[in-house]
């Protein structure tokens, strides 16, 4: 019999050898070494800045000097609740909700076809068909819509060719959603938002639909359900976590965007634009910070709801 000490190999020696042995013997040390750099980076730079910003929302701005008064106060939040600011918040939330619903409706057939019927080459095509627009340049996509919605652009040209210009004008004459032209109306803003965030809805919806067993759909129709009933009672509930996962993106991205409504839309502000205006020319960092709290709170609530619906498993 050998003594127990022989069972343990001698150390490797050398700087790297010793280090390697130490890390293998102490998994906690290894874990610490691996986690320290990313946590320091994200914790210090990202969370640090985030908390610094949130803290500033509890300061206020001196109305006479325009300087920030470093005293804890809720005055800035009172300012946030003025009717004009509440308008901005309501407008943004309504836009985010409509964009999310529209994306869900447009994304579903694409995702369903890709998940259920596309095979082989078509499957790859559909996947890339959602991936390429997702990753292609955000500004280029907005620019493309500026070209499309311009007065002399392709959309007006198509309407003119189809002799439907009157229809377009009737639409633009509607209150709220209309305007002088498409590129300065809420309809234009809405179209661009849907276009830009749609791929974020397709991919999670497709992932959820891939997991729906075909046998369930067959069982449903064997039991006498019409396609509409199968959709309503089987497919939709099973796809819902995926749709909610996608809606996290469409909702959050619309809430915080300030570039799309600035380039295509009326001059009435969205939350993102209000934040941008207050921190920039106005120099009112406390109010800008208070404005950023709105999407954070809405998204926190939204994520909590999504988690209860099991949406995170579909991401």
């Amino acid at each position, binding site marked *: 019999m050998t003594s127990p000490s022989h069972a343990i190999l001698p150390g490797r020696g050398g700087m790297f050898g010793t280090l390697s042995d130490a890390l293998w013997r102490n998994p906690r040390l290894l874990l610490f070494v691996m986690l320290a750099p990313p946590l320091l980076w994200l914790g210090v730079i*990202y969370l640090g800045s985030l908390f610094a910003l949130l803290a500033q929302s509890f300061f206020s701005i001196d109305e006479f000097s325009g300087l920030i008064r470093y005293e804890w106060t809720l005055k800035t939040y009172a300012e946030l609740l003025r009717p004009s600011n509440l308008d901005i918040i309501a407008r943004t939330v309504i836009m985010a909700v409509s964009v999310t619903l529209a994306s869900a409706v447009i994304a579903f057939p694409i995702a369903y076809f890709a998940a259920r019927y596309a095979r082989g080459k078509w499957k790859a095509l559909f996947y890339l068909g959602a991936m390429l627009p997702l990753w292609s340049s955000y500004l*280029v996509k907005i620019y493309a819509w500026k070209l499309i919605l311009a007065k002399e652009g392709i959309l007006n040209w198509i309407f003119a060719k189809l002799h439907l210009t009157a229809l377009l004008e009737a639409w633009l004459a509607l209150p709220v959603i209309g305007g002088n032209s498409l590129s300065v109306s809420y309809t234009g803003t809405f179209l661009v938002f849907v276009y830009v965030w749609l791929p974020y809805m397709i991919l999670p919806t497709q992932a959820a639909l891939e997991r729906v067993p075909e046998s369930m759909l067959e069982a449903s129709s064997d039991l006498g359900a019409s396609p509409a009933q199968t959709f309503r009672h089987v497919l939709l509930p099973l796809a819902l976590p995926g749709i909610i996962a996608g809606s996290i993106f469409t909702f959050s991205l619309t*809430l915080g965007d300030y570039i799309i409504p600035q380039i295509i839309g009326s001059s009435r502000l969205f939350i993102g634009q209000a934040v941008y205006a207050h921190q920039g020319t106005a120099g009112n960092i406390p109010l800008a910070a208070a404005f950023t709290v709105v999407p954070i709170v809405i998204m926190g609530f939204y994520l909590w709801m999504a988690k209860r619906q099991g949406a995170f498993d579909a991401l």
Partner: protein
Amino acid sequence: MRSDRNARAPLGLKIAAAGGLAFLHLPILLIFVYAFTTEEKSYQWPPPGLTAKWLAVTWNRPDVWEALGLSVRVAAISTVVAMVLGTLCAAAVSRTRFFGRETISLLVILPIALPGIITGIALRSAFNIADIPFSFWTIVLGHATFCVVVVYNNAVARFRRTSSSLIEASMDLGADGFQTFRHVVLPNIGTALLAGGMLAFALSFDEVIVTTFTAGQQATLPIWMLEELVRPRQRPVTNVVAMVVVLVTFLPILAAYYLTRDGDRVAGAGK
């Protein structure tokens, strides 16, 4: 979902799916036509004529080259930082169970889950508080922060499929930790890292919202584009730049797709 060879898609579904895809792709194709239009002053459709002269004009514009160079440098450095941080984080999260593991995933995703304007304004006010002047490095700092998540996602997915017994086997056979990393771990996660890196590059190359807050006087290519969008000066040049940006971002995305496509077949995946 199992394949059902007899199933045919209903016509309505086919039309809706094709229409959706057309809606996604036609606007981008439109950019390609506009890059060759002879019309300078408006966005007239159909283009009155086609010309390639704007390619040459754009080629000779120093401000475009400067913006492009800055964007590439920022994206390259942010990608390297994000790859190191993202891989470390993914390795830690997928190898071990520890207290607060879920929180770490949340922390990594947060910079991209919260609207970009929040990340941007938070960083800007932090730089102001700390008296850090805006520079190349402040842009990198912002970009690396939200690029970590794409590398992390790719690496975590691959680590999950790679068997940990491979590492144990390597250690049992006498390799030290660094050799195991170099010869066993790295070849297995290599393509996932490369794909994550390419996506991080594309993300950083294209980012504008955070950049407007963390850049001082420098203009990255997206900032240059944004200026042109708000106050158009020379529309044809913008058209050409937009086309080039589309082409440049497509390549890494396609490459990333082909690299991760075969990810199911990594060694030891069946364990």
